[in-house]
């Protein structure tokens, strides 16, 4: 692989980054080639020592995604970061995707439970409209009470969700720092 091929492959794997970021990264590698060549190395030698441009690109994208999450932790940003970190290597498929699915399941079931409780009075009213003979005040108040419990669960879930997201982003950061990705088999 020569310099042009290396830079092109790298550039292709950076497609999802904003162009300013992308140009900056390409510039760094362009400089690396220039300095290496001025020291008498061939383009091929330099490219080989740098390693796989696609893997370098993936790592750049993962870093960028994690930065975005730290700025604004929206669900979309977290998902993109998880995806980018998983892309770093097969190992991450297991140690990132596994915990992520588990946490997502906890969060999802918590919200479904909370919302279900909140909606109980509505369901009860619908039920009474269909079968008016089953109406009792006891059931109505019980439904309203469940609705109140549901609101508390939802408030709790809001904090639990935020806390879990923050924790998981920390875990992703740790992952990018310590786990194989871009190191190749030198």
């Amino acid at each position, binding site marked *: 692989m020569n310099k042009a091929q290396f830079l092109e492959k790298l550039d292709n794997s950076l497609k999802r980054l904003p162009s300013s970021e992308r140009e900056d990264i390409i510039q760094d590698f362009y400089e690396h080639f220039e300095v290496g060549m001025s020291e008498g190395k061939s383009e091929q030698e330099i490219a080989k020592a740098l390693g796989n441009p696609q893997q370098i690109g993936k790592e750049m994208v993962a870093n960028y995604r994690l930065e975005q999450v730290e700025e604004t932790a929206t669900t979309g940003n977290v998902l993109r970061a998880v995806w980018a970190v998983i892309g770093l290597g097969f190992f991450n498929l297991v140690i990132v995707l596994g915990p992520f699915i588990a946490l997502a399941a906890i969060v999802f079931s918590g919200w479904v439970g909370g919302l279900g409780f909140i909606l109980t009075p509505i369901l009860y009213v619908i039920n009474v409209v269909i079968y008016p003979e089953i109406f009792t005040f006891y059931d109505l108040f019980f439904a309203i009470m469940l609705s109140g419990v549901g609101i508390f669960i939802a408030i709790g879930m809001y904090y639990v969700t935020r806390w879990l997201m923050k924790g998981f982003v920390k875990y992703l950061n740790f992952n990018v720092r*310590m786990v194989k990705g*871009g190191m190749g*088999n030198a």
Partner: protein
Amino acid sequence: MNVQFKKGVLELCVLVLLDKQDRYGYELVQKISDQIAISEGSVYPLLRRLTKEGYFTTYLKESSEGPSRKYYALTEEGRTYLGDLLADWEKFTNGVNQLIKEGVRDE
């Protein structure tokens, strides 16, 4: 050497190299790969991350040969971080060395 392990240590290597003087990317990469076998390209994502985290600043400087080069300089924050990492590293290697010594003695 184990790949996971190397990646964690790379951060420390880069910070140490910038402690005494500012350096450009190629120079950093060469210094490290002279001592440790790495995929040289993996140093650049690390440099970007540490720069964005505020541990380095960068500036361009003209060179007598070829285009101007991007130099990396350690910030105060970076120096503090390096101090922490070095302390951790020493504790860790002392521990491992002690275990190795004891292991050898037992046999």
